């Protein structure tokens, strides 16, 4: 236990170091922009990893929470003139309530049936966002006013990077804390055997709901921030492909690993940028890399590489 906490501190310290050094290494605002997007995805993925990695409950509709976060922020600030922070909180409340409401019936399902149910939920949300043109601007999207914090608005990429980096670090810290608390242990237990966890006194339904809501909140936060940062959002951000991408980030980085979620998000955000100049080979390369990593490192990048490093 003691050895483990030090490792966690070391990991958080290293994350802080990388986040601090990164802006000085990146040559221009475009790279900062990619780093910001990766950071926002990483926040959503840390939340999703709580659900998929720790609790073992798959969600193929998680982009819906990201999308709702983005749109609630957009609609309340652009349409209703709410202060962005208040809108962001409102999005959290709404997403939390929605996740709480659907969690119990849906999380009774297992495996592929759960995947289907979450996928359906995500698609329904995406359809509503695309169809309610008057509210959301429809498939072409809607503009979002800039973020304002106590009268201050982040003026550019550097300021945004700072905000995202701090929130990302906090998100990772919270996730690591939770993982080693009795709640985290209970999640891992119900992941391994629901009946054994229940027999040991774990309220399985409650814990699943809890982690589902929590992961929705992470996605909501990332979505709201994304909306303000990008200044423009479309329903595609809530869509099925986006959900699949989030899951892929978590799995690629390594399940049940908070740092894995961060790495997965960073890689899958950067890969399309790396391949953007290969044009018609871009999708081929992306598909091949996904397959290759999962075939040769089935536990995901970070756990597999850590294991290799540990063997030396």
């Amino acid at each position, binding site marked *: 236990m003691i050895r483990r906490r030090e490792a966690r501190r070391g990991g958080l310290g290293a994350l802080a170091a990388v986040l601090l050094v990164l802006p000085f290494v990146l040559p221009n605002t475009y790279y900062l922009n990619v780093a910001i997007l990766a950071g926002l995805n990483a926040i959503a993925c840390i939340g999703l990893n709580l659900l998929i990695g720790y609790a073992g409950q798959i969600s193929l509709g998680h982009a819906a929470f990201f999308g709702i976060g983005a749109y609630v922020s957009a609609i309340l600030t652009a349409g209703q003139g709410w202060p962005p922070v208040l809108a962001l909180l409102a999005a959290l409340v709404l997403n939390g309530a929605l996740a709480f409401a659907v969690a119990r019936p849906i999380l009774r399902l*297992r495996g*592929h*049936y759960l995947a289907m149910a979450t996928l*359906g939920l995500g698609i329904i949300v995406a359809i509503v966002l695309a169809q309610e043109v008057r509210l959301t601007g429809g498939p072409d999207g809607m503009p979002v006013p800039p973020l304002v914090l106590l009268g201050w608005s982040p003026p550019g990429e550097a300021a945004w990077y700072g905000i995202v980096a701090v929130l990302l670090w906090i998100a990772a810290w919270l996730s690591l804390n939770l993982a080693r608390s009795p709640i985290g242990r209970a999640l891992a237990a119900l992941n391994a055997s629901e009946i054994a966890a229940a027999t040991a006194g774990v309220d399985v339904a409650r814990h699943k709901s809890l982690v589902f809501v929590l992961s929705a909140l992470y996605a909501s936060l990332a979505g709201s921030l994304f909306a303000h940062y990008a200044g423009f959002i479309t329903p595609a951000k809530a869509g099925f492909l986006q959900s699949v991408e989030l899951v892929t980030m978590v799995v690629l980085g390594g399940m049940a690993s908070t740092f894995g979620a961060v790495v997965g998000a960073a890689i899958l955000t950067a890969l399309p940028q790396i391949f953007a100049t290969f044009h018609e080979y871009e999708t081929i390369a992306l598909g091949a890399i996904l*397959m290759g990593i999962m*075939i040769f490192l*089935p536990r995901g990048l970070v756990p597999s590489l850590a294991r290799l490093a540990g063997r030396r």
Partner: protein
Amino acid sequence: MLETFLQFLFSGITAGAIYALVALGFTLIYNASHVINFAQGEFVMIGGMATVFLADAGWPIWAAAPLAVLLAVAVGVALERLAIAPAREASTVSLIVITIGASILLRGLAQLVWDRNFHTLAPFSGEEPIRVLGASILPQSLWVLGGSLLAVLALGWFFGRTLLGKAVIATAHNRLAAELMGIETRHVMTLCFALSALLGALGGVLITPITLTSYDAGVMLGLKGFSAAILGGMGSATGAVVGGLLLGVVEAMGAGFLSSAYKDAIAFVLILVVLVAVPRGLMGARGAERV
């Protein structure tokens, strides 16, 4: 009123038969390996696109279609041998990501080898719609329906009557015991991917005259096929067909009587309601599933 209802029904059955064909492919692979193959839609795409391009190159349809199906089967076998078999110990989610990667890869290859346009194929028996009580249905829809029916019967015969079919079920249920019976489980898996690709590609050939095809036609078909398979209950061939037809009919009725803008949402709400009521789909096995 009857005419309108019938027209909705025909529309639903046309779409439903297509979903059912794709769902059957999911079922087949799931039964052998408990893998959900998210590249299933790509088999349909390959079947359609390869036929189109062979036909454009001057091949007669009766030669182009089997060749296209053969190509899809080769892809299916390659997918199993190169990606699924080496990752046998991987978790369900990892396997999902592998098949998603495969579908991205295949789409990328398709747009490189072929193109990014949509393509059509001449219907097998003309375009003159068949009229029934004022409603109309295309002859090609009957081909699709017939194809689904034939596929179900063939699968029913294969799993119910042949020793090889039983060997597939045995492998899916208990790989170790199957191996100890002298069943070559590796070949069984490959066979199932081949059959599934065959089924998908056959579907692709049959539906292209109705739906057209393009390099990314597999995405939506795969999604709908997966939904149909889950709705019917994963692993049941009858369930796949019932799920497919039900999904198609609900979409058509939803579009016709409620709102065409929300018809997909209506269909997914139905799936959610069904799953909450019957957590393993309409005809799913009641046994325990390890995931």
